[in-house]
């Protein structure tokens, strides 16, 4: 008798898990997913960077509009942190270390090294990555 009661408890726990999980489907799963998708579609750079309290979404926007897709962007700084999102957000541009490709070079691996004018200066664009931000230098 006691053993049947224990087995019934296991079944009850299984049903509790299912009911609890199923009850979350409309709100915590479907609704949250729809909200996340809407937010992402509005602005992927802001979704990732602002969403993770990282600075630099406006730099990404500027680069998306002003740097040709088939170019190389130079970078230096922290390998981890905000810079991790840049290759995904700026596809198909390639991110290349400025230690290997100095800013004086015009092309790298058959692609143009990105140049532009920003803040009154014209030159090679170099992204600087830190743990919590991406900034842009013109050299």
């Amino acid at each position, binding site marked *: 008798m006691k*053993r049947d009661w*224990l*087995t019934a*408890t*296991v*079944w009850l*726990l*299984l*049903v*509790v*898990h*299912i009911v*609890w*999980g*199923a009850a*979350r*489907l409309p709100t*915590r*799963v*479907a609704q*949250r*997913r729809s909200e*996340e*998708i809407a937010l*992402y*579609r509005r602005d*992927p750079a802001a*979704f*990732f960077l602002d969403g*993770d309290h990282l600075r630099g979404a406006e730099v990404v926007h500027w680069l998306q509009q002003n740097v040709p897709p088939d170019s190389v962007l130079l*970078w230096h700084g922290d*390998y981890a942190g905000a*810079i*991790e*999102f*840049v*290759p*995904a957000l700026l*596809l*198909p541009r*390639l*991110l*290349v*270390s400025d*230690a*290997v*490709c100095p800013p004086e070079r015009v092309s790298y*691996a058959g692609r143009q090294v990105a140049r532009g004018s920003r803040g009154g200066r014209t030159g090679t664009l170099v992204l600087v990555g830190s743990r919590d931000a991406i900034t842009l230098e013109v050299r």
Partner: protein
Amino acid sequence: MTAGALLDRAIVAMLIALAVVGGSALAVLAAHGTVPDWLLPAGVAIAVVVAMRRCIAWPPVSSGRPVEWLLALAIVLACASSIGYGALATPSRHWDGACVWDVKTWWLTQTPSLQQPFFRDGAVYCHSRDYPLLQPLLIGLGERLLGGGRVLFPLLFLLQTGLVGVAALRAGGRGRTACLLAVACAVTPWTTGTNAGSFDSGYADAFLGCCVTAVAAGLLLADRTLLLLGTFLLLLVKPEGLPYGGVLVLLLWLRGETVLLRAAAAGWLGGAILWLPLQHDLHVAGQSAVWWPVAGGVLALALLLLGSDALLHRRGARLRTRAIAAVVVAPLCVLAPPLLMLELGDATASMGSFLQVPGRALARLSWLPAVVGGSAEFGLLRGGFGLTFLLPIVALLVARWRDGALPAPRLCWFVLLAAPLLLAPFLLSPIDDLAHHLRSRLPRLFVHWAGAMWILTGAALCGRDRQVFSPPTARDATAA
């Protein structure tokens, strides 16, 4: 053909397709070639033909009422639809999904080859360059063929859910029990929702979870096909697959289960012979090859494992003798392959950065209570996994007390032996912020084991069903 048998064949077909397409595509990449677009449909066709020839014995149990199946199917398909919508509506919306996996997928979609600057030029920013490439490659091939490669994610969800249901049915469970278990697995919040590591997050953890689930089903049912395919895929999906496979092989060697050991060792070592040289190739940008040293090492390990198993069988060795001999075999299974990975790959990347300073684990032993406490908090209390990790413990204890024997001892031991692998990353990691590390990594590690936990719960519950539905034996008839 019953619905269960059809589902079983569909699951095996999918696993074969993943292994055939993934294995051949990675071999082409390793040979510095370009993966042909016809490989995906050809692999799927081969898988369907092979799976349709599968013939297994089914226990004589009640398959349940159609309404139960339909209700379970409706819930599972609702979850799969939500995951499919999340996967296809946008690229990955979570950190590693976007930074690591999606970028590789994009380049492999343009050209399914490693002969391009993104993979070959060390100066180009490529996050986790040495990570296994099965997931991005499959999505890339799907994208080129159909334009919706990320449909892989809901398919993997269906694969995992189906594995849980079919394992319960084949273990002697009633149709209703199998349906309940499959639905319970499907509605687990962390995997079905939108979290880092869930099915549509773009991470490869849920894929690895499917492979672990296939291995768990293979262990429960003593099914060599599931064991072989699951173990082979483990290594091609994420670096953690290598030690998971090592623990599995060690367990089967310890238990002296030669037939299963051969299947698991073939999958594990087959995966290693394919992945380790490719990882080295990525690290050195294709400048040198290590096929022969890896093949030699793998062959030596296979000979040692299978030869010592045969020798111990001939001598009638018991578990105690094997446990003593494991002093040599265990390090070769669990430690040697990751160290080989460290030696051949990038010591500063993925697993390399964890293994670079092994002494760190000793210095951090004082962290162990916090790591165990964190595991209990994230696995049991925070609700992300519901009762996924509590139910098997309770169900196994009840079954042990009720029947006088532990159900699925092979699977129980696998989970127990693999448990330290969940704690090890925190002691070995270069990350010093333990609270942050626990928060970001633990749920993903639990995703690897969620399906296996439902199979374990099923093993405990189906033992009861088997007792209820077992046909009377000659002994019962005599007693009557």
